[in-house]
């Protein structure tokens, strides 16, 4: 499944939905959108990864950038819909703990 993303904005709340494969190439394509979202200074960011099937360390970098940007701006970031295959990658890298995921 090809990588696709969608951004929905409502006031200062933003939802970024990711689907398919977030690999090295698609992470590079997503990078400008990550910067754009953070530049809009959202108060709340939801990342919906219900349909995300694959993530590499390059994809994780996008999450780190979003998390750090939100933390710096005092915004709340939530990840929803994590599937087991993605959860395994978050667990192995220690991101589950750092992101405060249950």
């Amino acid at each position: 499944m090809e990588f696709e993303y969608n951004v929905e904005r409502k006031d200062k709340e933003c939802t970024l939905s990711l689907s398919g494969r977030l690999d090295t190439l698609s992470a590079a394509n997503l990078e400008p959108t990550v910067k754009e979202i953070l530049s809009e200074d959202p108060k709340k960011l939801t990342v919906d990864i219900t349909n995300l099937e694959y993530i590499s360390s390059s994809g994780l970098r996008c999450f780190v950038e979003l998390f750090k940007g939100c933390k710096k701006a005092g915004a709340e970031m939530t990840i929803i819909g994590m599937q087991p295959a993605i959860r395994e990658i978050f667990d192995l890298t220690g991101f589950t703990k750092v992101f405060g995921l249950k």
Partner: protein
Amino acid sequence: MTKPNTNINHHSSFLTMEPKLEEWPRLLAFAEDECQLDPTATLLLEEAMANVVRHSGATKVTLEIEQSENKINIIIIDDGCCFDPTAYQPKESEELEIGGQGIRLMRAMSDSLTYKRENQKNILTISKLL
């Protein structure tokens, strides 16, 4: 590019590519064709290649995927500067670190990771039991 091994229980495939993002679709197509037995192998291959792109400054990379009934070996040979991912120590931190996650994943998801430097080339072998 596939070169069947003489042993019917073994199969080796090769790909030569430039280590750059534009080559990624070829890399992933190769990985998906050759790593069907174990999807984790696709991730291992991608992480190894991402390290070559980020750290070695290589101009050419040769990939070999060697499969037998119970094991897959991924061999990455590049002509870049000396970079030993088996010696790299990712920071243990409660903070989010951008670097080192690929190596952390390779170590966690493979059964062995060996490196050698020969003839000005980095040779990384990743093994995964099936």
